[in-house]
């Protein structure tokens, strides 16, 4: 795929070559300027991302505590796994860690699947012509704009076991006999969290899908209509294959977000192990238990899992993102 930018850049290059010496000089000046322009950004990223990440890796092999990170002693892989006095210790033997890994995966897969299905439905609707379409689009954007903390609090209030409107509504409709403890009940709290996350992120998926829908060629739909093919069949045979690249991008973006989920769960269910995710586990060790070494080991494992997904994404998504030369 040749993007306009690479074309234009090579056109500048070609003309510069024709111009001979002056062209080469201009070109060299441009490349030098490009690096000068990039350096402030690269330094900032190194300071806030590169170096801290390296330190986190390092801390995971030490007994660092929050009050004294400088005096940390190297303890090898003891934070991860250690055999001591006939027993295995370390994060890899901690059932709470494996519970939070499972919770994170369950949360990510279920919420992203629901978001994609509902996102496509909303996008298909917004793609149709009707009066007040802009108003509906604006309304759909509202959940996206609301801070995660606020949406978690709003839903916590609506899901309140004694005074919540959801229990009130369900009881009025005769669907349940007694109020449900949405955020406290072990079997319900994960679904409550998923419900809030889905509500908040459908707009994002819907907008990405809508953008893809609006770029589709009109003629094959006209042909399908002339041939009298059922719209459902047209969707699965024509629309879905054509929007798959955009869908893939949306899914990976959302998946990466879901795998590092923290705030919505922290506010809704606090540190409950029923909904504890890897991020919450790591932060609890780091900040509340002040065990930087152990918490960093958890963070490192989370990073490795996300890095795997990212590499997969870069591999699959290179073409769509136009990074290739």
């Amino acid at each position: 795929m040749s993007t306009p930018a690479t074309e234009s850049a090579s056109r500048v290059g070609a003309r510069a070559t024709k111009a001979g010496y002056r062209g080469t000089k201009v070109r060299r000046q441009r490349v030098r300027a490009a690096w000068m322009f990039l350096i402030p950004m690269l330094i900032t990223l190194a300071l806030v991302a590169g170096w801290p990440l390296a330190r986190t890796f390092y801390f995971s092999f030490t007994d660092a505590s929050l009050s004294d990170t400088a005096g940390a002693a190297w303890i090898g892989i003891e934070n991860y796994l250690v055999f001591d006095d006939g027993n295995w210790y370390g994060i890899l033997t901690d059932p709470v860690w494996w519970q939070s890994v499972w919770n994170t995966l369950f949360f990510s897969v279920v919420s992203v699947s629901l978001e994609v299905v509902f996102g496509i439905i909303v996008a298909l609707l917004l793609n149709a012509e009707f009066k007040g379409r802009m108003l509906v689009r604006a309304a759909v954007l509202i959940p996206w704009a609301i801070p995660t903390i606020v949406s978690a609090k709003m839903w916590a209030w609506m899901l309140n076991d004694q005074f919540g409107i959801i229990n009130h509504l369900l009881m009025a409709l005769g669907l349940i006999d007694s109020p449900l403890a949405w955020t406290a009940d072990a079997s319900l709290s994960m679904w409550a969290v998923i419900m809030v996350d889905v509500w908040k992120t459908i707009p994002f998926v819907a907008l990405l899908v809508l953008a893809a829908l609006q770029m589709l060629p009109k003629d094959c739909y006209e042909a399908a209509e002339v041939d009298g093919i059922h719209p459902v069949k047209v969707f699965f045979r024509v629309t879905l294959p054509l929007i798959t690249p955009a869908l893939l991008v949306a899914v990976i973006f959302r998946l990466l977000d879901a795998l590092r989920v923290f705030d919505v769960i922290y506010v809704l269910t606090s540190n409950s192990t029923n909904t504890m995710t890897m991020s919450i586990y790591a932060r609890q060790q780091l900040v509340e238990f002040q065990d930087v070494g152990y918490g960093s080991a958890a963070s490192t494992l989370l990073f490795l899992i996300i890095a795997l997904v990212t590499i997969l994404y870069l591999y699959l998504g290179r073409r769509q993102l136009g990074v290739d030369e």
Partner: protein
Amino acid sequence: MNRYQQIKLAKQVGKWALIAVIMVYAIFPFYYAVITSLKPSSELFQVDYWLYSVDLGNYAQIFSQDSFIQAIGNSILVAISVVFIALLLGVTASYALGRVRFRGRTTVMLVVLGVSMFPQVAVLSGLFEVIRTLNLYNSPGGLILSYTIFTLPFTVWVLTTFMRQLPIELEEAAIMDGATPWVTLTKVFLPLMWPAMATTGLLAFIAAWNEFLFALTFTLTDSQRTVPVAIALISGGSQHELPWGPIMAASVTVTVPLVILVMIFQRRIVSGLTAGAVKG
């Protein structure tokens, strides 16, 4: 009415019913928060779908607390500073990445994309150390620094996409006139980039305004908190006695500006969000 007309009518009804369901689903939680925030505390625990009288007691209560007003001030300071820094560093970087062909460009793009995928918790302990070393713990400076980790890569990415779409002729003319890259950027491209910068800045502002994990970890005292942390930490006598009225009033207060921004700039926001992901 024949069969064809019946089917057509059913389709119309179905479409409008779906629109109504989506509208209610999207708006109702916020609407309910507004209603709750405007109720007197005596009626709080009675479920209503409609507001019968307006009581501003909850708002009076949160605005009488210095810590809440300070939190709003901190949030504004942090978000605006982050947007400014991200745009400043982002617009020069995006010129280099979007308009100049050089060795290593793809690598830099992949690094930027890679950083935007970082789980925040993975840098938490390292960043905590950096912030403490720079003496920025428990101050807005620490948050401004740490927020560049998610606003900067995003800004660079989206601005690069926009930068690539600008016509080449402008740049050629500038080069022929002997303009340096700095002059080309500031005098030729910058005036054309304002709409894109407004979009990106707005998205970065929303991201910074909503951030929670860093704000919770890198601040300690009430006077240094940002609004999301302040709201999350509002507590009553016990876990079961949360003051829902004031919580909803605070929630509505910090959300209304965002909702208004989204209503005004929805076209820009949509183009910015999709530019980051779909276009290339």
